[in-house]
């Protein structure tokens, strides 16, 4: 008989039942917990505090904790499995974590601030003590606009073609006020000094009530992308002195969430050229250093989120999240330790890499032999069309990188670091990402950063507006379609070079 245990997550207050032996990594991932070192037990970024119950330790785990100077009741989520009922406090929501695990330096100020990551799908807000840098409380919600379509283009469609803009603005502002209201109950009546909101261009326009029509067709240039200031009353919050600001758009589809990403990665202060890539539907890319920054959106599409893939699904329970070959046999890891129901983006990348190595997919992406399907488990398989979808998505990113780097005169060797943002990015296998030509950089240069929009917004709570102005001054947006060679570059990058 299978055992099930209850896991309680604090400060989220969420409770879940899972099978005995389920890795904590699988449980925490859907809640936005990040694994900056990729789950190798090196950085301590995913540490959790055991408040009640227990999580057993093996030797390796013990050594990893010792190295990081952590004692009971701390555990590393990436090294832990559920072995009994347990209540956990997620350390990540308490401290700033940078990829190199050095604490983030800030100048303490009195009072509180709120950092808001306003995503197309999810909303995350953190109440931060500006004195200690601690996250006092967290709120997460699904974006209520999602019922009008999953991606930004369908929101534009609803807003512009079906006159639904006011409705979308109302929905998001109401949710914002509700989430903020709940956070404010934790400050003991003190109104926050600052609320900073980061979101992509479409979220910016919808929240701020700006006309989205320019984003519906060529040339996709918006005159309404500047930072947007609000008073508390305007947004239905109790009247006070709080400064409320929605971060400005960088250009076209590259929004304030990416601007926050630049802050989080320190790209704007780096001497060496670095890259920031968001492996989402819009596939935003930033290349540059403290002198000059170029950005673009590559329109990769939703393949990495499992959409348009025959058996694709989001990275939740039942999804194949990684694939390896052991002794000539295909082994899959399924999120939640359950029977595989489908495959998510990280699993797709692994599967393609594995089939390239076994010769079941050739360099052009064709399934070899007379096979129609490539099985991964009894039920889950890849189709030829899945491979094609992946080729489009990976080439969009690779081509965007190629064009931006080329424009700045950089070769891969000039780039000191590649920061990958987004929850999906933290779960990818870097060897395989390079193998399929998605991010063809040496593994040691790639740093998984998780939610850079939230981190950057949080960091900006401690600064005055100048850093944002400086970034805006040196950043230019490049429209990839303006490159006359796009088609050839795009076709070249679809191939899987050995």
């Amino acid at each position: 008989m299978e055992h099930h245990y209850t896991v309680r997550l604090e400060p989220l207050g969420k409770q879940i039942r899972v099978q005995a032996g389920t890795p904590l990594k699988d449980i925490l991932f859907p809640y936005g917990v990040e694994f900056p070192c990729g789950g190798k037990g090196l950085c301590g970024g995913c540490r959790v505090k055991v408040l009640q119950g227990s999580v057993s330790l093996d030797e390796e785990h013990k050594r990893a904790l010792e190295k990081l100077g952590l004692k009971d009741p701390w555990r590393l989520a990436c090294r832990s499995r559920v072995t009994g009922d347990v209540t956990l406090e997620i350390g990540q929501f308490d401290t700033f974590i940078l990829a190199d695990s050095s604490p983030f330096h800030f100048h303490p100020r009195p009072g509180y601030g709120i950092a808001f990551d306003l995503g197309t799908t999810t909303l995350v807000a953190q109440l931060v003590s500006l004195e200690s840098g601690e996250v006092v409380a967290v709120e997460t919600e699904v974006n209520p606009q999602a019922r009008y379509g999953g991606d930004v283009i369908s929101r534009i469609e609803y807003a512009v073609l079906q006159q639904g803009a006011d409705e979308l603005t109302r929905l998001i502002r109401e949710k914002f006020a509700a989430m903020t209201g709940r956070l404010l109950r934790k400050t003991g009546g003190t109104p926050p000094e600052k609320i900073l909101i980061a979101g992509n261009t479409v979220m910016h326009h919808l929240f701020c009530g700006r006309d989205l029509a320019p984003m519906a067709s060529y040339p996709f240039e918006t005159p309404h992308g500047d930072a947007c200031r609000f008073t508390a009353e305007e947004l239905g919050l109790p009247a006070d002195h709080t400064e409320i600001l929605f971060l400005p758009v960088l250009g076209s589809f590259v929004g304030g969430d990416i601007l926050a990403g630049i802050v989080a990665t320190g790209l704007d202060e780096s001497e060496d050229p670095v890259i920031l890539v968001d492996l989402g539907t819009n596939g935003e890319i930033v290349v540059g250093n403290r002198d000059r920054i170029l950005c673009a959106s590559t329109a990769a599409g939703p393949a990495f989120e499992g959409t348009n893939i025959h058996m694709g699904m989001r990275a939740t329970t039942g999804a194949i999240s990684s694939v390896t070959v052991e002794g000539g046999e295909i082994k899959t890891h399924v999120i939640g330790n359950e029977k595989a129901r489908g495959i998510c983006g990280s699993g797709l990348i692994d599967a393609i890499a594995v089939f390239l190595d076994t010769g079941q997919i050739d360099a052009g992406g064709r399934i070899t032999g007379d096979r129609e399907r490539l099985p991964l488990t009894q039920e889950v398989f890849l189709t030829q069309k899945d491979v094609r979808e992946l080729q489009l998505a990976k080439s969009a990113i690779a081509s965007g990188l190629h064009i931006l780097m080329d424009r700045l005169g950089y070769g891969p060797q000039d780039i000191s670091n590649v920061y990958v943002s987004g929850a999906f990015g933290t779960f990818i296998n870097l060897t395989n990402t390079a193998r399929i030509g998605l991010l063809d950089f040496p593994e040691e240069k790639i740093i998984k950063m998780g939610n850079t929009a939230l981190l950057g917004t949080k960091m900006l709570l401690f600064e005055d507006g100048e850093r944002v102005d400086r970034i805006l001054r040196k950043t230019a947006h490049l429209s990839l379609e303006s490159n006359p060679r796009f088609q050839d570059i795009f076709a070249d990058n679809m191939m899987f070079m050995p």
Partner: protein
Amino acid sequence: MEDILEKLTIAVKRGKADKNSPYPPDMKGQEGADELTAEALKMGFTAEEVLQKALVKGMHLIGEDFSAGKAFVPEMLMAAKAMKAAMKHIEPFFKSGSVKQKGTVILGTVQGDLHDIGKNLLGMMVEGAGWKVVDLGADTPFEKFKGALEEHPGAIVGMSALLTTTMVNMKGITEKIKAMNPDTIVMVGGAPLSQEFCDQIGADFYSPDPQGATEFLDGLVQSS
């Protein structure tokens, strides 16, 4: 004798443009579509024969592979390059009138949209099937289609869109084209489209891939 046309068919399908081209790697050093076409004409094959028995055939084969998922954008583009290299030799015969094209197809990505790769692939296939293609490029408003139709009366219009926000522009353009001349045939395509959408906007034909579109076009010639 027929051998050379077969070789040319393969060169087109595999995307071997000329002897010097490194692609495909397994055909390195072999003659490509450029040389083989010149030779075939020298050997006495008519331009019509070279076109129909080798170029159209080669493009048809790659089109079939593409529809079946066995070939993709890069292979298709290489095949088109090979076809273009061969066409250089055939074009003078189009101009002199000794080889007739099946008709004229005007293509454009719809107003507001710059995605043109699908439209370009379609253009190559249609040209490779023996049609004259007038490519109006991307972000094409009605006025441009109008101008091209005035210049090429009786031409068929093909429109492509990749965005759900721009495909709606096809409706207005189709209506205006039909108002100019109700007999003008309008075909539409692009990833977000469907047969249902095609019917809604009053267009005549929808195909999810270029192969379907060329088969539809060829059907028009046979029935007339």
